[in-house]
């Protein structure tokens, strides 16, 4: 196992280096530079050239690449061209918001999806199976921005149950007497609609994976053996079939959790949720190289390490797997 982990970590380092290089090249291939986008007649050609030089974009491309690798190796992500702030600061301001929303959504969706997928498989061919499967297929294939806007319009505007968008109420956060739990409550209140949207979009995939895996498991000999031993249906389902059917779900949930730091530009934009997904799209569209590169690198790093964790987890979950 130790050898396996060391080998996988070495692979991660090589892949990370490749990703760093690809990111650097891709952004330089994109048309224009951050200054060129400033279509403002007040910015004269001389001023624009001076600004490009100050941003270090006039250096030869190999020099830029060398500085870029050196900075990343030392943990310096540079300053955002747009905000003028250190990139790490911009990311740390937005990342917790994304993790809070997306991780909660993934966990909730996984719990419900697995639970309902189990029931659907157990009731194969009956109305419950049909209802869960249709619900999963319909919600999973909905167009996210449409669903999000519909929920905002209905629950936020028509019923006025929830705020239209945003993450916090100014009144609560500007009041110096507000306790921490009131602030937490306020964020939870604002999180409901985006959470509901993400839950509806994602629970279906876990349900379908679990159902399919469970159906395969139910055909196994050990299930017949368990029945022959006279175990109750509940015990067979929950203690013998479900744990064995969990493997594909673990992969799916593990990777979803990793990708949750990426957030979702669409969800975050529609709900004005100040997260990393929105920031990433903004950085790419504004040629903010340092910020966009750092965001992508962060996502790549988390996903690569999550893969290693999922691989290791497999060995614990399935005694047949040995590295």
């Amino acid at each position: 196992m130790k050898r396996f982990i060391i080998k996988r970590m070495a692979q991660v380092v090589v892949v990370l280096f490749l990703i760093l290089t690809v990111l650097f090249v891709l952004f330089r291939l994109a048309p224009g530079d951050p200054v060129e986008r400033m279509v403002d007649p007040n910015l004269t050609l001389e001023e624009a050239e001076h600004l490009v030089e100050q941003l270090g974009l006039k250096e030869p491309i190999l020099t830029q690449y060398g500085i870029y690798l050196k900075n990343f190796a030392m943990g310096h992500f540079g300053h955002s061209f747009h905000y003028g702030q250190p990139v790490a600061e911009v990311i740390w301001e937005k990342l917790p918001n994304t993790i809070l929303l997306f991780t909660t959504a993934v966990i909730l969706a996984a719990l419900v999806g697995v639970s309902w997928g189990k029931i659907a498989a157990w009731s194969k061919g009956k109305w419950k199976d049909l209802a869960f499967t249709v619900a999963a297929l319909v919600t999973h294939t909905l167009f996210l921005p449409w669903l999000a806007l519909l929920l905002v319009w209905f629950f936020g505007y028509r019923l006025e149950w929830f705020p239209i968008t945003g993450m916090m109420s100014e009144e609560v956060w500007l009041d110096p007497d507000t306790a921490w739990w009131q602030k937490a409550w306020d964020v939870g209140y604002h999180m409901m609609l985006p959470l509901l949207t993400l839950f509806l979009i994602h629970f279906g995939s876990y349900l379908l994976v679990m159902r399919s895996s469970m159906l395969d498991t139910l055909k196994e000999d050990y299930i017949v053996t368990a029945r022959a031993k006279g175990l109750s249906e509940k015990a067979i389902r929950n203690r013998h079939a479900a744990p064995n059917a969990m493997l594909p779900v673990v992969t799916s949930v593990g990777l979803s959790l990793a990708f949750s730091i990426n957030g979702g530009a669409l969800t975050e934009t529609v709900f004005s949720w100040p997260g990393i997904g929105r920031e990433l799209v903004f950085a790419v569209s504004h040629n903010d190289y340092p910020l966009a590169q750092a965001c992508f690198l962060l996502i790549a790093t988390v996903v690569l390490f999550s893969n290693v964790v999922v691989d290791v987890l497999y060995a614990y979950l399935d005694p047949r797997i040995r590295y």
Partner: protein
Amino acid sequence: MVTIKKFRRLLLNLPAAALLAAIAVLAVWAAPAQSAGNGILKIGVLEEPKSLNLWLASDAWSNRILSLMYQPLYLREPNSMELVPWLAAEQPDFDHKTLTCTVKLRPAKWSDGSDFTAEDVVFTGHMIYLYQMPRHYSKWKFIEKVEAVDKHTVRFVLNKPMAIFLSRTLTTPIVQKKQWASLVKQLEGSERALQEILQHDFEEPSVTGPFVVDKWKKGVFVYMKKNPHFFGQGQTIGGHKLGPHIKGIIFKIYGTADAAILALRKGDIDFYWNDIQAGYLKSIENDPDIKLFTNTKSGVYYLGFNLRRAPMDDVAFRRAVATLIAKEFIIKRILQGYGEVLHSMIPPGNEVFYNPNVPKHGAGLDRAQRVKAAYEILSRAGYTWETPPVDAQGKVQKARGIKTPDGKPLREVVILTPPADYDPHRAMSGQMIQEWLREVGIPVVSRPMAFGALIQTVKTQHDFDCFVLGYGKLALDPGYLRAFFHSSQDKPKGWNMSGYNNPEFDQLATESDETMDTAKRRDLIFKMQEILMSEVPYIPLYNPVLVEGVRADRFTGWVPALGGIGNIWSLCEIQAK
């Protein structure tokens, strides 16, 4: 028994039940948290400021907040658009012989309580000059010397007469010397000093404006509270009795216009500080709680030609294209009536410099008349057709096989536009122009291109035929005509994207830049517009009308101006109802 079973099933689905329960409970408990603030104006915006550093944050979204903080010596009065003394105490005293301008300053304080002095003005100029500050340097580089005569008097000495001195240099926002001096000293000798300046961030910038930033939750809201040291409080400036009469402003950041407009209708915000697109207006117009303000912008949207290439290098071709374009149709159908037709590169809202008597190609003609007029222009220039657009009886017909004066078939012309998701008006205008040009047989295709790529293709590479672009917020000083059409700007990344080169225009542009007498300059600018509209390197198309919405039941006293009600005068004058 059945009920127990159902209950057990519900328990199995606990996570879903928990989510639903949380939704219900929060909906009931937390809803009262939505209450209107007392004397606090809530404004919806689509982007937060880049930074509170004036030198970095010069974009339109940042400017909404920073324009309430950093103040200039002179400001435009919203009705007359004349410059009135703002941080200055009176009109500038300009000596044309010695090119010296003396400005007396108003007694004012920075938000930290310290005095605003002539030293701050001198220091601001020094910073701009020293670091070649983007967007400001060109307005200051002709200043030979700026000195503090006394605590409240500044003297500028120019090395040559420059028209923009009064309208642009003296309207530069002033920064506090005390706050920047130590950083400037630290950066002496640094190669990347400008970068350091742009990256510098203050938590509490000292400002002279009516509001200061009190709290900024990144990506969510910015709270500005009233500046107790604001020099204008209770004063009458430019005929306006100033407040502010409100405690503060909350800028709420929305991800989409849909969300911001719903928030306005629901009452979560009092003012949506952005142009409301025509598609939203039908539903808003009938809402009794919303009041709409319609104002003109200082904008120009246009079709540009690449004069470095045939057939765009032929003035007859360009005039024929200008004749074929029905600008009224673009306003009526594409902008749904929310815009004005442009016949010059200076919009009519700029009353001082707009020349109403420029050549107006095809104005007032119907479709058939336009085709006939364009046919006549092209025929006279030597273009021929296999099947001309007008038959022997003078009837318009489908044209085919157009040939250039040298007998070669006219090649396909490409019109580049931004994509529809970036700007549907420009993308659709490109498509309409394509159809109109095809009526006389010009092979043309309108092609949307990602904005970044479009700018690079047009401005840097000059690898294009035609393009549709625009400027939403042009300065009132018409100095931009020189930037757009002077031959010295015809280089990669230069502003003369069409490659227009006319020595007579160049001379007029240089002369106008150095003419400080407004009447004389006006004549020169009028002449420049006549030349441009006769030679049409650009065809001005439209200037969209700005529609803004406020809650009718919350605040009153909004001040309409060129560019909308979102201005410092409004925010200094509005009062809660």
